[in-house]
């Protein structure tokens, strides 16, 4: 029984076109993931941006679902209506408020569209049940998860990535809203959260390392492709 040799066209597709398409797809995918990590590394920097504007702008003008909060939207004022899912409230470690260092009370707010946003809404524990509210506040980017160990509400950082694990529903924004006035307080002496500019210049080295790693993976994909071409040439 004779084995038919593949035609020239088939060999070109098999040896050159298919591997080239595969390598380009892998390299582009790696570079896209690297770019994503690169953006994440710098996303937490410069929280003062846009913080001085007093205009209340619609949320959909400022942010896109499941994306990094754009740097131009950091500190922007917006109004979000919906209901507070008080059952999932937690408090952080002491952080800056208008009344000095106090724990932040964080509650998820579900909009009419069903999106959920973390709201830093002032001190005081909430009443039971979901409560309709309209909150005016300023947007802040998510902070890093702790470098070591698991995140718990006792951590000072407010990390959206950690909230995704903690809450049984997806979180719309990679950021949170700091309410200008306390929302649904039962304790009148509770602190009002105050918009405070976090120290700028804190690049996430972890994300930066991931970005470099993805770039190296893209280089490796190109290396494999180059080796393939050399092997083919040696075979001919």
């Amino acid at each position, binding site marked *: 029984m004779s084995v038919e040799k593949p035609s020239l066209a088939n060999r070109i597709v098999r040896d050159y076109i298919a591997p080239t398409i595969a390598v380009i797809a892998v390299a582009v995918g790696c570079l896209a993931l690297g770019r994503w990590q690169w953006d994440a590394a710098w996303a937490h920097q410069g929280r003062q941006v846009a913080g001085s504007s007093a205009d209340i702008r619609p949320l959909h003008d400022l942010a896109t679902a499941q994306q990094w909060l754009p740097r131009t939207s950091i500190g922007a004022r917006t109004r979000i209506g919906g209901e507070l899912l008080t059952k999932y409230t937690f408090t952080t470690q002491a952080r800056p408020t208008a009344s000095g260092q106090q724990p932040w009370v964080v509650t998820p707010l579900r909009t009419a569209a069903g999106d959920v946003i973390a709201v830093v809404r002032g001190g005081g524990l909430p009443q039971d049940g979901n409560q309709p509210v309209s909150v005016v506040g300023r947007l802040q980017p998510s902070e890093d998860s702790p470098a070591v*160990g698991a995140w718990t509400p006792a951590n000072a950082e407010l990390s959206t990535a950690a909230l995704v694990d903690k809450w049984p529903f997806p979180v719309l924004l990679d950021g949170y809203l700091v309410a200008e006035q306390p929302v649904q307080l039962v304790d009148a002496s509770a602190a009002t959260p105050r918009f405070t500019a976090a120290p700028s210049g804190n690049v996430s080295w972890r994300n930066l390392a991931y970005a470099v*790693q993805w770039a190296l993976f893209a280089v490796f994909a190109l290396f494999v492709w180059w*080796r393939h071409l050399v092997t083919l040439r*040696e075979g001919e």
Partner: protein
Amino acid sequence: MGFLEARGRQDAIAFAQYRAVAWTTGVVLASMTLYLIAVYLFGVERSALYTYGWQLHGLLYIFFLSFVARISIRERWPMLQTVLVALSGTVPLWGIIMERKLTAARKLP
């Protein structure tokens, strides 16, 4: 020492280096996978070791890839073999199994 003999010696050294990195990466990956299962299935607390262990694997994997690239040039591996060996460093135990197979293949006459 003749050229071929020197070349063979360098190949052997490169392969030994690949084996060392493959085992180190494989052992760290297998250990961290067990830790991950313990954390998510049995509620074991995540310590600093958990974070640093995964970061160590990420670093080792870059070294692993560089050794795979080097040996694939020296031994003229085909594209598929290079890709499979490279990916073996990301799947628990596969990297070690792959190393055993490659070592056994080299010992064949």
